[in-house]
């Protein structure tokens, strides 16, 4: 019990990094996801292929491998070390965010793709019939439908990403899991630390879950 109270402030401090990693990755991941989902629905075959293999590779391999390739692997590439990009790739923080972004981007693109496919043809025909141009149709017709359709699945993805950020601890970052591991390995009392750190994670999942639920209700125009 003492250990639980003692470790709580340290774990809470580390939670800030976890939240930061989650929000940044999700933010960038949405853009990556939209980009590849649009590529996937395009009529040009090569673009479609690129998007397909991107999501296939990132969803078919563990996140741990992706982080290790970006953090340990890219450091080996000579021209990368000499270019200005090295400022980004030498830091574990930015490497973790790049890996998380690409990973969540792949899942997001799949969620959005299936949402794009649910748009009824008649809606688009009506929009074009009214004389709206392509940009208008995309932003005013397609996007609102897609956002509403993909919200429940995206809520799950947000929670998966929150859990995924725990892998940042494998590249020396001290996020919630990293600090928890550090405390466990110095005190050898895993149960207490697990309860505290686990509760913080559960609280965050709970908040995300309810946030998505409220948003779903707000976007439900049918009622």
């Amino acid at each position, binding site marked *: 019990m003492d250990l639980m109270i003692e470790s709580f402030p340290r774990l809470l401090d580390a939670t800030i990094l976890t939240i930061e990693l989650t929000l940044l990755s999700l933010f960038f991941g949405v853009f990556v996801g939209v980009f590849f989902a649009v590529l996937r629905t395009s009529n040009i075959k090569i673009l479609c292929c690129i998007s397909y293999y991107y999501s296939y590779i990132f969803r078919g391999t563990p996140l741990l491998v992706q982080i290790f390739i970006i953090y340990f692997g890219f450091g080996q590439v000579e021209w990368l070390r000499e270019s200005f990009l090295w400022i980004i790739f030498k830091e574990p923080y930015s490497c973790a965010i790049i890996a998380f972004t690409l990973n969540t981007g792949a899942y997001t693109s799949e969620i959005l793709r299936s949402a794009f496919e649910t748009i009824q043809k008649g809606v688009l025909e009506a929009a074009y019939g009214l004389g709206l141009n392509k940009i208008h149709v995309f932003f005013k017709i397609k996007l609102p439908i897609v956002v509403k359709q993909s919200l429940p699945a995206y809520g799950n993805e947000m929670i998966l990403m929150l859990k995924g950020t725990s892998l940042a601890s494998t590249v020396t970052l001290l996020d919630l899991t990293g600090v928890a591991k550090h405390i466990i390995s110095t005190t050898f009392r895993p149960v207490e630390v*697990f309860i505290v750190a686990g509760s913080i994670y559960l609280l965050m999942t709970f908040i995300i879950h309810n946030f998505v639920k409220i948003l779903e209700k707000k976007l439900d125009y049918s009622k």
Partner: protein
Amino acid sequence: MELLAYGDTGWGDELFFATLMTVAVAITAIFIGFLLAAIFASFKLSNTRILNLIGSFYTTVFRGVPELLVIYLFFFGSSGAVMYVAKIFGYDGYIEVNAFLTGAISIGIISGAYSTEVFRGAVQAINRGQFEASEVLGLKKKIYYYKVIIPQMLRLALPNISNVWQITLKDTSLISVTGLVEIMRQSYIAAGSTRDPLFFYSFAAVLYLFLTFLSLKLFNNLEKHYSKGH
């Protein structure tokens, strides 16, 4: 390419056995998961409130907490727990619990939380008439479960079991932090001694892609086989 040679000169044989280890851990874990899911899904479906709560607690905790944290709990906790029990029986030495077992159990418990939801959903998707019919026919409980409910449930659950398998397979990479020599750990060792992390981690990614590709094909065939007549 000589880095992947089979034998003493390359890492081919090591990586091959590491791949087998990954598959072995994943299969053990998913079966531990099925066992837990059978128990907790029946808890969730029962009419007793306290059992419902226990079932929900299990699935909420192990689906909401990062896999890595669960692995640390079991990795650091298991030898402590075993030594505590051994002490009661009068043994005072240090006991290290097998890394394979710790890994398979921790991944199994996580995988079980996902399987529980899959099993529960599948049972609920079975037509109500089936339950009523077997009641009217006066089937014994055992026959009712094994011959009526479970075969239908498994067919309905198959696509989602495929998903759980993919998650479990990828989660095994996290066991590398405990030192069990599976694909990730072996790549880490190889990358360290050859100073070629890019090659070995990329190769690990290819191995995982191969495994996920293979299992997707297998599950698609199974699905086709079991949906005959539907």
